[in-house]
């Protein structure tokens, strides 16, 4: 069975989580669980031949919260993982796979001023951005909105990927005057094999509500070894009423700084990419009609380009009723882009059954395998079998530059339920 990067202490954490879970579940006030079974079959064109692949995938997640104990408040255990058996001709030659996406124990103490999270988790705040790691993430709220957070652990190796470092640590100091506003400064270091620097960044982040209808959010990440900006992102969102949403944003990235600092390729380039534009969403007929449009001008070493799109969704009929939508996108960059058109929709047939359809078409600026057109269609039949249970049957049909014709089928059975025993005592 293939798993992501495993360490001795990760195994210890897993055992702790399972043991804590075993005793904790019984004492939790809220327990939710979901299980998704997916059986799919596809004809997979690969290296000039067509193979058949039939994966059986089981995804499970479990969350127990408000676990009563004498040490911590708001204690919760969250576990999510999957296992897969592939029959036919698996792409990577492995017929049995499995991994853990998330598995952590979290609790708060000292009048909820200190929060601790231990296990496999994501770290989002500050310059960490989105680091999946096996480790510990504490947070301390000092008072008056000020606080400190940090993390230490081993980055998780992604599927089909190499290690993303052997050790990661970081810290963030923040001031959060209200729940929707915060300003933070942070540092991050990820070391690879032999203590080589994978990433070493400092950053500033902010989200601030200037007015009730106006919010500013931004993030800047500075690469310490390269002494230059790796990423800057700023957005101003104006939402004067429920019918209108306008966002203007600017983003700068240095793509080469997203390579590990010890990659051989990190020494070749020093370029930036800039993107500026905006987004508008109109809801002239609330909960019925949604119109969206965006335009972004892109500039990099290859010159100027742009990315623009629009989407309209109309909903009518009660109880889910009917939804239809159209979407289009045009990406134009040096070296060629594409034009995409899409129609989609769903129709409720009975309270428990609905049909869903989606069709995409692409027109490429430059031929790919000698072709400039691509079509992708899918249709689903959704049946809400019982409360918390759902079955979905999906068929997909493609005509693409990579395959003259490809059909894929998918059957999904989902359970998503739980129990809540919270009680308010007079």
């Amino acid at each position, binding site marked *: 069975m293939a798993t992501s990067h495993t360490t001795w202490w990760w195994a210890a954490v897993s055992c702790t989580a399972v043991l804590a879970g075993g005793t904790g579940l019984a004492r939790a006030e809220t327990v939710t669980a979901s299980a998704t079974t997916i059986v799919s079959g596809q004809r997979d064109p690969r290296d000039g031949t067509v193979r058949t692949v039939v994966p059986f995938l089981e995804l499970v997640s479990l969350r127990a919260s408000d676990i009563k104990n004498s040490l911590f408040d708001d204690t919760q255990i969250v576990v999510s993982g999957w296992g897969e058996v592939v029959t036919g001709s698996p792409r990577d030659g492995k017929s049995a796979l499995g991994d853990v996406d998330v598995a952590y124990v979290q609790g708060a103490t000292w009048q909820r001023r200190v929060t601790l999270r231990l296990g496999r988790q994501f770290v989002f705040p500050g310059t960490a951005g989105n680091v999946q790691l096996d480790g510990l993430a504490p947070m301390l709220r000092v008072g008056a909105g000020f606080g400190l957070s940090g993390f230490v652990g081993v980055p*998780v190796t*992604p599927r089909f990927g190499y290690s993303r470092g052997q050790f990661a640590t970081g810290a963030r100091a*923040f001031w959060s005057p209200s729940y929707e506003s915060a*300003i933070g400064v942070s540092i991050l270091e990820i070391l690879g094999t032999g203590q080589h620097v994978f990433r070493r960044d400092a950053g500033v982040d902010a989200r601030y509500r200037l007015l009730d209808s106006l919010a500013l959010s931004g993030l800047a990440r500075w690469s310490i070894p390269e002494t230059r900006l790796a990423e800057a992102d700023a957005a101003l969102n104006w939402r004067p009423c429920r019918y209108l949403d306008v966002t203007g944003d600017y983003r700068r990235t240095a793509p080469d700084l997203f390579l590990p600092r010890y*990659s051989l390729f990190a020494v070749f380039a020093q370029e930036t990419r800039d993107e500026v534009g905006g987004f508008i969403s109109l809801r002239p007929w609330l909960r019925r009609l949604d119109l969206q449009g965006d335009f972004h001008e892109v500039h990099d070493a290859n010159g100027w380009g742009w990315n623009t799109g629009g989407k309209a969704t109309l909903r009518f009929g009660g109880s*889910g009723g009917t939804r239809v939508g159209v979407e289009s996108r045009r990406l134009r960059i040096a070296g060629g882009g594409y034009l995409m058109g899409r129609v989609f929709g769903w129709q409720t047939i009975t309270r428990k059954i609905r049909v869903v359809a*989606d069709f995409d078409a*692409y027109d490429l600026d430059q031929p790919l395998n000698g072709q400039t057109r691509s079509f992708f269609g899918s249709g689903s039949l959704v049946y809400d079998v019982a409360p918390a249970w759902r079955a*979905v049957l999906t068929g997909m049909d493609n005509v693409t530059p990579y395959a003259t014709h490809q059909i894929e089928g998918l059957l999904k059975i989902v359970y998503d339920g739980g129990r*809540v025993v919270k009680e308010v005592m007079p």
Partner: protein
Amino acid sequence: MSWGRGYRRSWIALAALGIAACATMLGTRRAKQPGEEIRQSHAVHAKDLPCLMCHEEVPEATTVTDRLRPLEAKCLECHAEKKEQNECGFCHTDPAHPASYPREAHTILISHKVHLKLVNDDCAACHVKLSAYTRPGPTPPTMKSCTKCHEHRVDFDEGRCGRCHTDLKRFPLKPVAEFSHAGDFVRQHGVVASSTADACTQCHDQTFCADCHAGTAPTRIELKFSENVTSDFIHRGDYLTRHSIEARSDPALCQRCHGTSFCTACHNQENVAPGGRDPRSPHPPGWAFPGPTSHAVSARRDIVNCASCHDQGPNSNCVECHRVGGIGGNPHPIQWLRKHSLPEAYGTAMCQYCHK
């Protein structure tokens, strides 16, 4: 490739889907809402009758449970003749299969016992829309009616939603204005989460994030939620065809989640990278040498694209020509030496591939 045949099939499939959708729309009737098993109107009943006449359990209730709804015996106190006349449809929306109220999980924490005393048994003080409910189903109080008395700002700022809401992860509310997910939220949510991740965790635990962001995830989110056609999933549709264009357009976007080794693993299998069994070169003639189609310009401009096939450390074919003394010359950008010294190169394992 027989494109003509492929096109025809696609259009036939699309037409069939369209016809099926139209036929269904014409033939369907409004679907029943959950909780509509029993036909009754609060607008009619609450006009003349005190609420507690039917909801007898409420004055002593410390939790919200199904028991707060009147049982059949209570209804029959007034409507017994309908049952005697077998007019099941008077109360049951589906007389052929008469059912009781469905079991429902409850979403707020409230003690009716405490609150009723405070409002002098006036249920409409909280259930302000009661007279507007002409159809059966839940009659929750508005949040505004709660915050009339309860100072909500402090709890909100401290993210203590659990004092009233049983579980926002399981029963998410429509985001309030400050956290509206309307507009360009899919694009902006990363920046928002970098500052106010705590706010996200009120409604979403990390399994929600893992659906899209876990490097360990087994399948694309578009397949996991194949029926969810209205969401803006990033790899929707024929992503395979457009992935090279989008990677060129925004290389950092791919790198955030995947890293170059993800690219290499697939490119090796497709035999377009040096690690394949029988690799074929996707590069134009003259790529390896100085000239108008030389790789040098492309590498300087989009090194991530090169790395998606060639990032094999010391086995990378760049080393062969670009090492010190090699025919490829110095590959570093102009500012490189301002920040990196030769002693540093001799002390760093990666640099020593070239600087032996």
